[in-house]
């Protein structure tokens, strides 16, 4: 068991344990902060897989962007922090049956499938070069479409979340 394996198991443990806290914690603030450790654990595994650019984007986008958004959401929608005590007991049995089915199917398929592994490919020192090249050549159209999607989502989010201010209509009434 060399250092690489130990680091893999460490990050896997951090990821799964904090994901469990996200799901099963009673306090929503704890869930939000456990999500931070999940994102960091996944980023560590990206680094182990030689995906440096993706790992840095994971930290920037998820931890820096999405998680902060989530925390704002939590703080804007909780009147009293620990009102939400109810974990659904109604659908626990069908949910656990369904989850067991999903987990069994996924793991069974992953175990049975003979994945094609290209051996002897020396991983490049950095993936940023090749990723940037592909974004600007082969995948330039999806790249631009992604930027438009982000712009539209930004506008839509601002439209949905803001208060409806219709003073002139109110004055007419």
């Amino acid at each position, binding site marked *: 068991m060399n250092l690489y394996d130990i680091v893999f198991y460490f990050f896997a443990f951090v990821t799964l344990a904090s994901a469990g806290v996200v*799901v099963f914690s009673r306090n929503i603030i704890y869930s939000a902060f456990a999500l931070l450790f999940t994102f960091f654990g996944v980023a560590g595994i990206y680094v182990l897989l030689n995906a440096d650019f993706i790992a840095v984007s994971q930290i920037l986008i998820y931890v820096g962007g999405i998680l902060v958004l989530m925390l704002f959401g939590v703080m804007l929608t909780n009147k009293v922090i620990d009102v939400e005590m109810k974990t659904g007991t109604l659908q626990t049995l069908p949910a656990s049956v369904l989850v067991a089915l999903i987990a069994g199917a996924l793991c069974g398929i992953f175990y049975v499938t003979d994945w094609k592994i290209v051996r002897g490919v020396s991983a490049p020192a950095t993936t940023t070069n090749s990723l940037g090249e592909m974004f600007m050549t082969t995948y330039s159209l999806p790249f631009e479409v992604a930027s438009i999607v982000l712009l539209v989502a930004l506008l839509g989010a601002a439209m949905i979340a803001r208060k409806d201010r219709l003073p002139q209509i109110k004055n007419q009434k």
Partner: protein
Amino acid sequence: MSGIPLNYFVFLSAILFTIGVVGVLTRRNAIIVFMCIELMLNSVNLSLVAFSAFHGNTRGQILVFFVMAVAAAEAAVGLAIIIALFRNKQTVNIDEINIMKW
């Protein structure tokens, strides 16, 4: 690469996905459901990066990048919807948000 086979990464991603499904199915707070969707997206990204690394090309990471972009858009719009819901109904409990239920 290393001594860790591809299967371990893929199983990790499967377990992470399953934890996300548990959260979506059992929790009642809309924001927790939202976090669990992010967990599921992350697990898919993880498997994509693992396949990309073991296959020896970086195309899979392009797809991961697009998934991240869409996840960011989804987070922004979803949280806006949750905040609008909270303003109207004073709750984010998805059992009580049944205005469109027949």
